[in-house]
């Protein structure tokens, strides 16, 4: 857990919070809009999935709390004092609570604010209004260094375009988060081996990204995101650059890690096939949360 005093960004992260509790998370709705075309047709699918979904013990502890967050971006090339100056609203009054151990999908069409919401939760952007608590820490009160430390120690990222360091091997890419945490080389080696093994890439550990397939690259990215045992893994459209088979395998992998290790995953997608695997789907449209549905376990695939 964190201990953070007001205005102080030198917080002390506690041990990663992965508690397995026997209750499902509470479903919280923010700005429900049942008539919104963004949600039309999806509810049926979600509940259809949930029939076959196995029951899973769930943690109850709140990990992320997004409270009435808005994010506006100024239009380029027009000074803020100019009468014509205006903003584009990427996210509007969005609220969301995520418990530890959840496997949550943020769905919505392109431009709906999925990436913006993930960026805000991941502390790589700051909301214009509202606040976000990650593992009890109010990120709006963190200074840049505090946010860097929070990202480094509590959050893992999986990107749409893999974003592996091209001059590093798969193993070195996975090792990187441990490196910047200052973990010793022996422990790094062990944890890298474990992480690569867990994504089934032990045999490809010494390959550079350019020699890996898209699916393998994204599995390396998943290993990199979890190797430092973060409280939260954020994946922005992780399957967007993968074919269906690899996409399904990746989602299965992430879901398996979620179940086996209790890792909290929040991933964004607009691919309806992937949503079948999600246990909870938060739907965004035009920067607003329009639905938040639980599938009670999702499909194992």
């Amino acid at each position, binding site marked *: 857990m964190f201990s953070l005093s007001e205005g102080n960004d030198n917080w002390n992260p506690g041990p990663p919070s992965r508690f397995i509790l026997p209750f499902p998370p509470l479903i919280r709705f923010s700005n429900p809009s049942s008539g919104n075309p963004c949600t039309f047709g999806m509810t049926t699918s979600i509940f259809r999935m949930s029939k076959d979904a196995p029951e899973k013990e769930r943690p109850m502890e709140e990990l992320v709390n997004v409270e009435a967050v808005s994010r506006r971006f100024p239009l380029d090339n027009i000074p803020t004092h100019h009468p014509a100056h205006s903003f584009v609203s990427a996210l509007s009054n969005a609220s969301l609570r995520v418990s530890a151990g959840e496997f949550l999908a943020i769905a919505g069409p392109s431009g709906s604010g999925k*990436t913006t919401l993930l*960026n805000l939760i*991941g502390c*790589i*952007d700051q909301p214009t209004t509202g606040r976000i608590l990650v593992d009890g820490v109010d990120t709006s009160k963190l200074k*840049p*260094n505090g946010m*860097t*430390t*929070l*990202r*480094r*120690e509590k*959050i893992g*990222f999986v*990107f749409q*375009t893999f*974003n592996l*360091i*091209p*001059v*590093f091997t798969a193993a*070195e890419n996975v*090792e*990187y*988060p441990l*490196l*910047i*945490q200052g973990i010793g080389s022996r422990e790094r080696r062990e944890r890298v081996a474990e992480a690569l093994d867990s994504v089934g890439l032990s045999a490809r550990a010494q390959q550079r990204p350019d020699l890996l397939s898209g699916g393998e690259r994204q599995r390396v990215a998943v290993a*990199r995101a979890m190797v430092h045992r973060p409280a939260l893994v954020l994946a922005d459209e992780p399957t967007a650059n993968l074919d269906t088979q690899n996409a399904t395998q990746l989602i299965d992998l992430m879901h398996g890690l979620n179940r086996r290790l209790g890792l909290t995953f929040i991933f964004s997608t607009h691919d309806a096939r992937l949503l079948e695997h999600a246990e909870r789907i938060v739907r965004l449209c035009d920067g607003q949360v329009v639905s938040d549905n639980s599938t009670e376990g999702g499909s194992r695939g």
Partner: protein
Amino acid sequence: MAKFLLLAFRNVFRNRRRTLMTLFMVGGGVAGLLLVGGFFARMFWGLREHTINSGLGHIQIFTADHFNRDEVRALDTGIDNWRQVAATVKTGGHVRGVAPRIEFYGMVSNGDKSSVFMGTAVDPVAENGLGFFPTTFTSGHDLDSKSGGEVEALVGAGLAKSMNVKVGDGLTVLSMTSDGALNGVDVEIVGIVDSGVAEMDARSLRITLPAAQRLLQSDRVTNLVVGLDKTENTDQVAAELAPRLRGLPQQLVLKKWIELATYYKQVRSLFSTIFVFLGIIVFFMVLMSSVNTLLMTMFERTREIGTMLAMGTPRAWIVALFMLEATLIGIFGAIVGVLAGNLLGVLLNHSNLHLPPPPGFTVPMSFQVLHVPSLMIGSSLLVIVSLALASILPAIRASRLQIAEALAHV
């Protein structure tokens, strides 16, 4: 740290063509500095040895009065007991020889024409003992101390041409004695000298020490010239000699060659300034082109930097990474430059190239470069520092990237 260094190292060779171009540019700068600096160093060395071995010597000993007042009469500030002084000096280490000299001036005449001369009286045997460069003669031979009746003389090529005389001809040398009277001696020209310095050859006349003492009516000498085994030993020998000369009856002053070589000092000062200017040009050349290259690298890696920042890499690490990469390029460039510079230097030294005679000289100068370790270290440090400085702007820009924008960079 090792992984971080590995990351920087691999990033350097990520875009090999561009890195190669940068290495060529940096290496070219270093090689250029080494060649120019090596040529200047060779020139300084050549001028130094030429200055010393053409007669200046490594150390000269004068009376203190010589520098305190002008001579009213010939040799009135000369050394009295010069044989004793010479014997004292000769016992020191690294001393190859000691030669007494008289500097005098007067008129020289062939019966039809007279001209001013600047004379030097030498002891040919002692001069040979100094181990200096042999005198270059256009005709004739050196002075012979054992010659009997006729007083022998060497004249500069310019003076001989001006007086229209040749070897075997006679001249009358006129000068003031130490008593203030006018005296003259007839001399026979035994050699015509080409020192390589036109101004000197236009006025120089050399006779033997006994002849000059007879002309000037004095047993004194102007100074004693000391020749050493190596120029590098000058300071050491001077330090050892100074206390020993204090015990002698006449107050003497010891001057090292560098204190007397005014022309050498001026040349060195001029060319050192030119070299510093060249160094500044190379510094800015490397700096400006590297800033451009490194900025390009930064833009290409925007998304990667965004990813690293998103994962929690401290911004200072990004700055350090870019600076480390630039420093590595600087180190590799310096290695390339030192190798290329030395290789080209060896080739040039074997090419037997000659440059036109420098101002005041009559002989062409061979194009040789010295391999100077301090120059290699200095040039290498210059480009390494240039690269490190050039990386500051791109490094800071990289570290200040907005993560969300960097991740969306295409």
